[in-house]
């Protein structure tokens, strides 16, 4: 074991300047600026190709529905607050109070999803109501969710995760929610619960894959 004082000398010799990590707010804006347009464009293109529908018309009609607008706002607010909480939790010494931010928008989103399911249940009856996976939805989930998840992982790799469970949890929620904005605008079937479950599965997959890829892009943790 070398002496701790020697280690301090080694660390401070030939010290190179470092680029300070930007504030979580600035990083959040950067994430939104990159991930949201790409997610929306990819979502629209994939829906047009796979289902052959006019996505612009669908989006305009949905934005004319007040309930849908409230739901999209709640989803977007969940994405912003969870993304902000993820980026804050990855920076040591930041306040933990921001971890509470996603609660209200998430509960609003969940309440609207629950209410939507209840209405569907009443409309089509228990016999036709199913939670079986719809494979046709998977390309849409991938198209809208991949870029938000991968971009967030790459941004988080700039720091050591001191609260890994919290950070990954918020990041998964944020990325899934940002992907859900495109899905609610361009995806015709209104199977919200199933879509959400699929989206969470897909987002976790993206996190695992991009985490593996990112580990090859970053120098080893122990290197100075």
């Amino acid at each position: 074991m070398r002496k701790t004082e020697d280690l301090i000398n080694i660390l401070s010799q030939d010290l190179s300047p470092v680029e300070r990590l930007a504030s979580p707010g600035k990083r959040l804006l950067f994430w939104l600026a990159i991930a949201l347009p790409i997610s929306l464009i990819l979502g629209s293109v994939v829906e047009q190709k796979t289902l052959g529908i006019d996505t612009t018309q669908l989006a305009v009609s949905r934005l004319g529905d007040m309930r849908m607008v409230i739901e999209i706002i709640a989803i977007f607010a969940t994405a912003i607050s969870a993304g902000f909480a993820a980026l804050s939790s990855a920076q040591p010494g930041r306040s933990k109070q921001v971890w509470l931010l996603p609660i209200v928008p998430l509960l609003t989103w969940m309440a609207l999803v629950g209410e939507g399911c209840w209405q569907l249940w009443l409309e089509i009856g228990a016999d036709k109501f199913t939670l079986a996976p719809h494979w046709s939805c998977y390309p849409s989930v991938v198209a809208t969710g991949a870029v938000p998840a991968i971009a967030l992982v790459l941004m988080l790799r700039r720091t050591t995760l001191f609260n890994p469970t919290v950070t990954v949890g918020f990041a998964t929620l944020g990325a899934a929610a940002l992907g859900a904005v495109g899905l609610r605008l361009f995806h015709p079937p209104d199977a919200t619960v199933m879509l959400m479950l699929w989206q969470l599965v897909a987002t976790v997959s993206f996190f695992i894959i991009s985490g593996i890829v990112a580990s090859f892009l970053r120098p080893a943790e122990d290197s100075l």
Partner: protein
Amino acid sequence: MSEEQQFSQLMALAQDGDGEAYAKLLSQLLPILRRIVGARIKDHGKLEDIVQNVLLSVHRNRHTYDPDLPFMAWLTTIAHRRTMDSLRTLYRQQKNEVLVDEYPETFPSGGANNAEEEALAFMASDALGAAIEKLPQGQKTAVKLLKLKELSLKEASAVSGMSITALKVATHRAMINLRRQMKQGTK
């Protein structure tokens, strides 16, 4: 200026590449880190190891410090997390280790339990050299050139006039013969 403001200022300078400020900062932090880590670790040797881990973590993450934020909150987050990680690693290692005062005997033969002395005696007798000398000429040449002089196959081929394939075959057979001879020698 309070101590925390001073730390914050030194770290800001360190982020800009000021090694002197950084050395001063880390030296001033050392007793604080020993106190934080010492609250959980009583063994002095392990404590210093973990303090060094925390210093390395501070170094790797110095870009994450925002000079507008309190310095101690940043430092204690890193110190607590690293201490917990180190403790976890320590417990994991201890679970897989068995401490013994005396190594148990594994075989009834005395020699089998004293591998080091046996190896030294073996080297002194040059049993390997004698075994190489007993090999057929081609195998002896191959071993001497490739294993003792550590020539490449190409170089050994040029020196000996043997083909590369012949050298490979001779080496392979020599290893089998040597292994057999050494086994007989230790019986």
